[in-house]
């Protein structure tokens, strides 16, 4: 994998101003309050690879995903996709061309398709928007091809979304994502709202499409088993920061960060192997009121005074990158 990565994320961050209105602040003498949804996020995605971003609520993974496709503007840092920056000034024309090559699949199959549009119009929208087909007939042909590609019947293209099941709607969303022949697709919890058997169909489909078209995926998920099945590299996020990045085999073989270990412990043991599991402690903290120092220290069995004072930086070790004092000090 020596070729240049397709996506480079550099020190990406986003804060939201959640202060009370100006008048309230003046009267009650309150300071401005900042919600740091993501900070210092740095990683790369190689071509035709799947990078998974894992975390629970408040981890910032959805915010990062939205910044990468240009839905939210970052407050710090930058996203560079195939040499084009998503934030730099003066690159508007390149960014417009870039939009054809990126797309997003959302979690909720009931909200990601316009309920008043027919399936064929939903899939055709990118084709029409980017002028990729000539006549009406060409568009229809392309739409039929795409529907067949995702395992749907082109004869159903005149139906409305509510006439399809959840799994089928997600397939329509995938067909729409493929319509502009993208290189990079961000998948935000694509199967979390689907039944298990449908999830299997969808994940298999996504893998097949990736192999066939050489797609690059950013997969957002809270489900480690799904990540293991789909990704080649994994980044674990906690309260807006990356705490561990490694190849997928490494992360599951030897997780370093205590939070990664905790997530692995929480995965249910379907094989009833009876493997020993440590009990989990605490809950994800509120991003508006984060703990001092390392955000994980209230729940960490290895926390020291240094952890309470100082937030650990993301350090590069031989096969992983970890943000943990305990690991860098060799304690864990």
């Amino acid at each position: 994998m020596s070729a240049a990565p397709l996506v480079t994320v550099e020190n990406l961050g986003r804060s939201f101003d959640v202060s009370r209105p100006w008048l309230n602040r003046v009267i009650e003498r309150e300071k401005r309050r900042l919600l740091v949804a993501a900070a210092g996020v740095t990683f790369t995605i190689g071509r035709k690879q799947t990078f998974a971003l894992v975390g629970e609520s408040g981890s910032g993974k959805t915010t990062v995903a939205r910044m990468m496709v240009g839905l939210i503007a970052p407050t710090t840092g930058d996203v560079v996709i195939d040499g084009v920056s998503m934030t730099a000034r003066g690159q508007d024309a390149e960014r417009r061309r870039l939009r054809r090559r990126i797309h997003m699949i959302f979690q909720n199959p009931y909200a990601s398709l316009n309920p008043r549009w027919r399936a064929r119009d939903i899939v055709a929208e990118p084709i029409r928007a980017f002028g990729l087909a000539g006549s009406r007939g060409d568009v229809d042909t392309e739409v039929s091809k795409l529907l067949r590609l995702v395992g749907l019947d082109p004869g159903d293209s005149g139906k409305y979304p509510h006439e399809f099941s959840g799994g089928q709607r997600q397939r329509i969303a995938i067909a729409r994502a493929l319509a502009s022949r993208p290189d990079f697709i961000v998948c935000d919890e694509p199967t979390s709202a689907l039944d298990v058997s449908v999830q299997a169909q969808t994940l298999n489909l996504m893998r097949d499409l990736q192999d066939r078209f050489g797609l690059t995926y950013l997969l957002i998920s809270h489900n480690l088993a799904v990540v293991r099945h789909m990704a080649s590299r994994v980044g674990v996020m906690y309260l807006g920061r990356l705490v561990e990045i490694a190849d997928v085999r490494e992360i599951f073989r030897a997780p370093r960060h205590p939070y990664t270990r905790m997530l692995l412990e929480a995965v249910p043991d379907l094989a009833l192997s009876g493997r020993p599991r440590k009990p989990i402690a605490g809950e994800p903290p509120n991003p508006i009121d984060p703990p001092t120092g390392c955000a994980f220290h209230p729940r960490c069995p290895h926390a020291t005074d240094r952890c309470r004072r100082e937030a650990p930086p993301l350090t590069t070790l031989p096969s992983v990158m970890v943000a943990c004092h305990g690991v860098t000090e060799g304690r864990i």
Partner: protein
Amino acid sequence: MSMDSPLPQRQPGVLRRAWDSDLAWSFCRSPVAVGASIVAAVMILAAVLAPWVAPHTPFDAATLNLMEGFSPPGEPSPVSGRVFLLGTDGQGRDVLSAILYGARVSLLVGFASVLFSVVLGVSLGLVSGYVGGRTDALIMRIADIQLSLPAILIALLVFGVARGLIQPAYHEEAAIAVLIVAIGLSNWAQYARTVRGSTLVERNKDYVLAARVMGRPVTAIMREHVLPNVVGPVLVIATINLALAIIEEATLSFLGVGVPPTQPSLGTLIRLGQQFLFSGEWWILLFPALALVLLALSINLLGDWLRDALNPRLR
């Protein structure tokens, strides 16, 4: 290779689907809805086809015979022997025909002003909800102003301003248009508010985000994606407002600032007729008033049914 049915199915046509829909089923089971829509349909049809359906032409001075004036309903006139179903007024105009032509004007002004309000209100509501920020605040404050002033007052203000701006020679020609704009401007805010609320919800939905990821321009997103999903409640409000618009027009005409005397509406007829109420020729006031009530009531009931029928589905 389909995962479900192997045969492609032909979609049933729009009419078939409308007939089969739950809405049609609920309609057929509501006697109020059926009754109200029959009455409304008959009246609207009769009014639209007035030139062909009316037995006489009440506003063509040549056909009037002063001696036929004050003819009671159903009785032959002592002079000419003609029977007027609902009687005649002081000038010999047939009340029935006057009602038909009058309803025509009332309906024209009613529909047109509602259309004006809807277009204005929905557009402003969409922009307000989608763009947000100061634009939203500005539009909503103007809407607040509209809502806090009585509709008649706003209409009178618009009328007065128009009268000042337009040369007296064109007053009569422009009167209907000004009236439509006046009533329209007095009623748009509720559409704007409703649409703005729905837009705020739809704006954050994933399908809008998907369109934004594609880089579609804001106007296209508002028009193609958001608009179809927010117009539902508008239909209900518009139907109920139609009745109100007709009454508002009648009120303005009654006060003398509505339609010009050459194109009387039901309101004008009521104004003309009220002086005769206690002098014995009651039919000149009663029948136009009844017609107005019937028209407004049937449209109102239809709107009420529509709102209730659509409600559970708006969950």
